[in-house]
């Protein structure tokens, strides 16, 4: 294990939207492999923007993003796409599962895309507590159950980095806590690094470390400073 190799490194990232709104400026940060951090910050400060940039879904104006020792190139959509496919897992606030596929099919999507054997889809569904519901459709599930599906899907192909944008924003506190524990344990069990964006102290507390995104950049929050 090369503990000091960063899974993700941001070098001087800036982002201004087409409407002239500067969201991020000269942001740098390094995330170690296997590290699980929470990002907090006021609404509109650019947390989702940052996640999109990391995922290669959007392009920074300046700066470089290194994933696994490879720089995410602005021009090469193919490369960014295959990186996402292989090394990233996603969990969204709005769940985003495909409505016309069964739960098993939804979870198996990353395996299909990466040409990996299917059996892990079944295992992941069991791991998130949805055994026996493989052939159900998303419309038959509650919000919490849908998010379990999303977590299974995010980890099924053993990604190196899981990105989660307010994964519990739509869930009640009890379910949220359950989901967060599940996510943490699954990320750790699969040896992935993770970034969770959240507004909730309780949610952030499940991470190894809490970071605060503000106009001045990304700063670690010490436990006594917690709001």
């Amino acid at each position, binding site marked *: 294990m090369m503990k000091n190799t960063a899974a993700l490194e941001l070098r001087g990232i800036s982002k201004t939207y087409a409407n002239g709104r500067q969201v991020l400026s000269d942001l740098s940060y390094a995330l170690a492999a296997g590290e699980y951090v929470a990002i907090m910050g006021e609404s509109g400060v650019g947390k*989702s923007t940052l996640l*999109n940039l990391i*995922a290669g*879904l*959007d392009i920074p104006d300046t700066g470089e993003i290194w994933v696994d020792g490879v720089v995410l190139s602005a021009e090469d*959509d*193919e490369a960014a*796409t*295959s990186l*996402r*496919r*292989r090394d*990233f897992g*996603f969990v*969204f606030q*709005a*769940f*985003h599962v*495909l*409505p*016309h*596929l069964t739960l098993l*099919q939804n979870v198996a*999507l*990353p*395996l*299909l*895309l*990466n*040409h990996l054997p299917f059996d892990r889809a079944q295992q992941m569904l069991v791991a998130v507590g949805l055994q026996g519901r493989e052939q159900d459709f*998303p*419309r038959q599930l509650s*919000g919490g159950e849908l998010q379990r599906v999303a977590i299974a*899907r995010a980890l099924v192909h053993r990604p190196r980095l899981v990105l989660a944008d307010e994964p519990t924003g*739509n869930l009640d506190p009890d379910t949220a806590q359950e989901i967060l524990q599940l996510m943490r344990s699954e990320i750790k069990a699969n040896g992935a690094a993770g970034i969770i964006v959240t507004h909730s102290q309780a949610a952030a507390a499940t991470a190894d470390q809490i970071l605060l995104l503000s106009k001045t950049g990304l700063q670690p929050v010490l436990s006594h400073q917690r709001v």
Partner: protein
Amino acid sequence: MSRSLLSRWLLLGEWQAHRLQIVVALIAIALGIAMGFSIHLINTAAVNDFSAAAKSLSGQSDFQVRATQPTFDEMLYPLLAQHESVAVASPILEIQAAVPGVPETDKNNTLKILGIDVYHAAAVTPDLVGVPAEGRAFDMLSDDAIFLSPAAMEWLAVKQGDQLSLRLGTQTVALRVAGGLVRAHAGQRIAVMDIGAAQWRFNHVGLLSRIDLKLKQGVNHPSFKAALEEELPVQYLVTETVDQERRIHNMSRAYRINLNVLALVALFTGAFLVFSTQVLSTLRRRPHFALLRVLGLTRNQILLQILREGGLLGMMGSLLGLGLGYVFAATALHVYGGDLGGGFFPEIKPTIQMSPLAALLFFILGVSVTLLGSLLPAWEAAQAHPASALKSGSEEMALAKLRTPWPALICLLLAAVLTHLPPVAELPLFGYFAIALLLIGGIAWMPSLTALFFSGLFRVFNRLTTGALATLALARLANAPQQAAIALGGVLVSFSLMVAMAIMVTSFRISVEDWLTRILPADLYVRTEVRQDALGFTLQEQQEIAATASIERIDFIRSLQLTLDPARPTVTLIARPIDQADPGHTLPMIDNALNPAEIPLEAIPIWVSEAMVDLYDYQVGKRVALPLSEAQQDYIVAGVWRDYGRQYGAIQMQLTDYKKITGERHVNEVALWLQAGVAPEEMIASLKALPFGESLTFWQPNVIRAISLKIFDRSFAITYLLELMAVGVGLLGVAASFSAQALRRVKEFGMLRHIGVTRGQIYRMLALEGGLLAGFGITIGFLLGGSISLILIFIVNPHSFHWTMELHPPWQWLLIMALAMMMAAAVTALLAGRHAVAGNVIRTVKEDW
């Protein structure tokens, strides 16, 4: 392998979840292809069969010599037979004899008889030789023997040895069926007899219709033709078999092309429906595709997936359409005949042949149209930023590009420009382009127009009232108009085409009715049983008719066929008394006739139909030559009249002039005006009492009018059928897109129910939305359809058929249609919404899907 599995999952999931939309898309493609393919099959079947039948008549001859008039003097024969380059010359007399007992309303109530010289014909047209009974070889030359093709025998219900009466002019000829033909084209009705017998028995002594020539080996054909044309007097024409075929093609070309265009319109409607279905379904799935992009599907994979789904849909629809088209064609041929009631291909009964090449072409056409419909939304979906596409409500953003009206306005402008261009190869190609551009421009303009209209209405309405539901309905239409506009596209296309066809057909029909009234001013028309080319009434017979009591006025009319250009169908020459001071009295003139004073003394005035101007450039005031006499004679075009009866051209002249030039005394039609109080039936009875009364047929103008309009309606029947189908498919498309949208709005309805809106109120809101939207679409469809009908009436029709007509929109019917469409749309919207609201709506708010 796993990619294709994913692709299958996505496809099956999508199709299972949206069965109605998939079925509508399938039907749309299938109907479009079916209409195009069936019309193609019918046309080729009819034309091929007719060409083959015509070819068997000209046999293996290299050239045919005929005259500009139907018959010529047989003195020409020895001249050609002894020509140094000619191997065989076969003289032929062609007679159209009437069959007593067959009603004249039957479009082909005549039997074509070929008088042949059997020894020469055997060398040139061996198929056309009679097969006499065993031991009666001399029947071939016998003066009462006639040989019939199987189809003719069947039609006349006679067999070998039976008697057969035929009639020409006022004469009846009794003949004996001596046998069949060596070989006749299937379904072709034709008879053969000895040429001498035919000349004698049918009163054509010394006359021939044509001479078929077979040249000696090694003779250069083009130079022989040129030399012969030089040698022969001007009224003779040297034609080749290809001329014959070209003529057949020219004859029905405009009609066939119009049908093909109609089929293309159907295809276009189908294509548009497929297009809008694909656009809407891709938009709906935009967040799904965005998710797949996030999960690692590349742009190309997304693009391929959408195209694959569209391609599969296109293949299934096209296959279905080919099958349907074959069935349509077979049924239509069975019911209407090869010209779909148009009257272009008498004497044959074509059968359909499946052509694999044509089928393949139509298949490819169907699949490519569907792919094209998928390509645009697929491209958009693949290019979209996954991050923003994941957010709900992003579809309208994707459609925002449609708000720019410029491409639409450019299309409309271009359409306007194209309407000013002349026809290409006698076809209104630019007219058709203009129609296509109008439709495309109209559809493309809808989104921005809808936005403009409803946001204006919304603003006005807000000031006037606070009705919550109406406000909600209007707000939605004002703010999310793009999807509404796309859903409306289907109605817009089918409705505007329906309006266009309705206006065109009604205008045409009313113009034809007017024309029939003006062209048939007399109380009674008398003809000998055969109109064309018969010698008709002798001078003696004319006097006897005129001497009949109770006649107020009598006009004698002589009509005959002239060949002015061997590659075109014949032109009808009609000689009758014409009011020279005011020709509008006699003919349905269209303006700018010459003043009687402007007609020079040495030139003979003729009045020509509009087709003559288009086809032969017979402009008013122009001096022209007609092949009526050996002597040089100038004719001047004194005016143009409208003729819906003969699209290949007709010329009218004074009967006195005609008699003077040709020296002929016969006429073949008599127009009678009766004294007041005399019923046509009484007059018919007294004319029947004349010695030749048996051979007369009588026509009352109202009967002719009724028959003509019946034929008219029949030939447009297929049009109505196509229209109805287009509208049906259009409404189906509306139903599908309304219900899809209602399903997408389940959450919105849930929210409304949450805040205390009743179910009934939601239904009313939906009906209002559907009605408003349809009302707007129908209004635009009206304007669009009206413009298209103007192009059809003032460009396409004159260019294809060489006649003009006046505009007569069927307001009442259009209004009823519009209301019916609006109701249908409102009910559809309501039903679609009911389906969506019926479930547990309130629950849906919680979920994101």
